[in-house]
């Protein structure tokens, strides 16, 4: 089962980003082939230098860095979402595949299930 998780929310405004991370780790633990696409406001989740303790929360970037340890290593970023926010891959804490144009739709078309949070 190929499951695509689309991380589309900024971190810290609410618990959504954290809940998506929890959900995808459970999927990976049960043997699903998990891909993650960071898109829209979700690209901020990958921004380095976070200090969640200032908001009384665990830092999301530190948790995301552990993804490859859980065999979640198919990580993608929508180049359009990155560029409109003035970000580059150098701002991100993990090596990701940058998807341009039709590559984004092809990723979705190639998976069995999709969850966007």
């Amino acid at each position, binding site marked *: 089962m190929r499951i695509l998780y*689309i991380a*589309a929310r900024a971190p810290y405004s609410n618990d959504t980003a954290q809940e998506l991370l929890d959900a995808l780790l459970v999927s990976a633990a049960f043997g699903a082939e998990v891909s993650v696409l960071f*898109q*829209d406001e979700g690209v901020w989740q990958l921004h380095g230098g976070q200090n969640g303790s200032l908001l009384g929360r665990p830092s999301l970037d530190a948790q995301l860095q552990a993804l490859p340890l859980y065999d979640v290593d198919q990580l993608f970023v*929508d180049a*359009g*979402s990155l560029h*409109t926010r003035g970000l580059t891959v150098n701002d991100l804490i993990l090596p990701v595949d940058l998807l341009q*144009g039709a590559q*984004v*739709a*092809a990723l*979705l*078309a*190639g*998976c*069995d*299930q*999709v969850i*966007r949070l």
Partner: protein
Amino acid sequence: MTTLHILFTAELPESLARLWSTGDSLLLAGASVTLALRPDLSLPQPLYALAEAVQARGLKLDQVALISSADWVELITRHDKSLSWS
């Protein structure tokens, strides 16, 4: 593999167009039904709207196929997967 995109928000997400493939469909549900009235937007086709959500808001949409909850289930079965935009 085709996707049924189900939109619940009153804003059109910037990334919907980038995730769109030939064979996909868009269903407006909840607050998103008002998007069909926006003259500045061109929504992808085929386009459906949940009749209940349209009528509950007192709207009249002539250009959109209105469907029931049962039709919604049937629409899901005609696609390989569904993607909820909330």
